[in-house]
């Protein structure tokens, strides 16, 4: 299947890697030259340093024959335009947009985006769930390529408690998104200090979840007795 990914941030980057490893044909458009060079070094010539919002760049990337266009940048308006251009101008059968503002979710669906992924809403929804302590909560499967949204609750005795996000040494396949603290969701930055009671939402490859759980919550073997 030929898939165009727009936005080479962590989500776009890992999604592209997963898609490539499952044998799909992928082109990744990233407009920032430095980031594009960085990920091109990792995954090669499928990365184009182009703005996916521009019609001519979508055309050059092969939008006419793409089965799916996934717009995963950090800007809602860019993701909307990418999907609408793909759908209406290039007749792409399936479009996927990441939205960050919950307000835009319904609007994007109404405006023709086939699949709307909203990490913020997922995190908010999880607040109301009865969250099992000491394990990763599996919130959603992002794609068939083994990427999952997971949630971890930090306890006072968790290894991550009191540590700064950048010092956690999480595996490459895991990215922390959002911390839910006192029922408020906020983005995790590299200098965010994790506290007992925090709920972390992360995008993780299925194959590194054991390590993610060990680093964030604690040793799975010791927990079997809990």
């Amino acid at each position, binding site marked *: 299947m030929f898939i165009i990914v727009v936005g080479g941030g962590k989500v776009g980057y890992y999604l592209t890697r997963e898609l490539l490893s499952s044998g799909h044909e992928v082109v990744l458009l990233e407009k920032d030259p430095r980031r594009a060079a960085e990920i091109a070094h990792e995954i090669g010539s499928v990365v184009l340093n182009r703005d996916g*919002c*521009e*019609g*001519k760049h979508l055309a050059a990337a092969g939008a006419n024959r793409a089965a799916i266009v996934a717009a995963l940048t950090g*800007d*809602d*308006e*860019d993701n*909307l*335009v990418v999907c*609408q*251009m793909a759908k*209406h*101008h290039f*007749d792409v059968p399936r479009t996927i947009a990441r939205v960050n*503002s919950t*307000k*835009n979710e319904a*609007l994007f669906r*109404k*405006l023709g985006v086939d699949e709307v992924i909203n990490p913020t809403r997922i995190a908010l929804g999880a607040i109301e769930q009865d969250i099992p302590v000491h394990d990763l909560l599996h919130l959603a499967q992002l794609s068939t390529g083994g990427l999952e949204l997971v949630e971890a609750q930090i306890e006072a005795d968790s290894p991550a408690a009191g540590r700064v996000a950048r010092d956690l040494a999480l595996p490459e396949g895991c990215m922390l998104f959002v911390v839910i603290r006192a029922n408020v969701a906020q983005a995790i930055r590299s200098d965010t200090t994790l506290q007992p009671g925090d709920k972390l939402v992360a995008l993780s490859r299925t194959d590194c979840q054991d390590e993610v759980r060990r680093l964030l919550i604690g040793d799975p073997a010791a927990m079997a007795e809990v």
Partner: protein
Amino acid sequence: MRTIIVGCGRVGAGLADALSRSGHEVTVIDVSAQAFNRLNADFPGQAVRGDGTDEDVLRRLGAEQADYFFALTEGDNRNTLAAQIAHDALSIPHVIAKINDPVRAAAYRAMGLAVICRTTIMVDALARFVGLPADPTAGDLVAAVVVEPSDEVEVP
């Protein structure tokens, strides 16, 4: 007539001044309060600092009762988002988005959004100056009157 203008750049401020002089009730929105320095000192309308792509902000300003909505920020994508909120969520009858990328402008025009494309207009004006035939659609907003979403035109 009630008019909402998102983006108080040269075009937004100029239009705000012109419309309010002719009796329109104008609200101009910009994320930067400094942008309002572009308005005439005696601008009689409302100047609001805020995000014009946020539906709640627009509703609070009474945008649902507006007759005209102009999305004139410097970002093509922000303008398309704001204009579609105005049209689809707020049902404002006359909505225009400034989209300077001609390919995007043509695509959204075909989807039924009224679009003004500075690039096309300037290219046409300069080409006519050297004697080339005019592009009759270059500055045409009338031909791109907003249609109902159900009448969307599919472009091959």
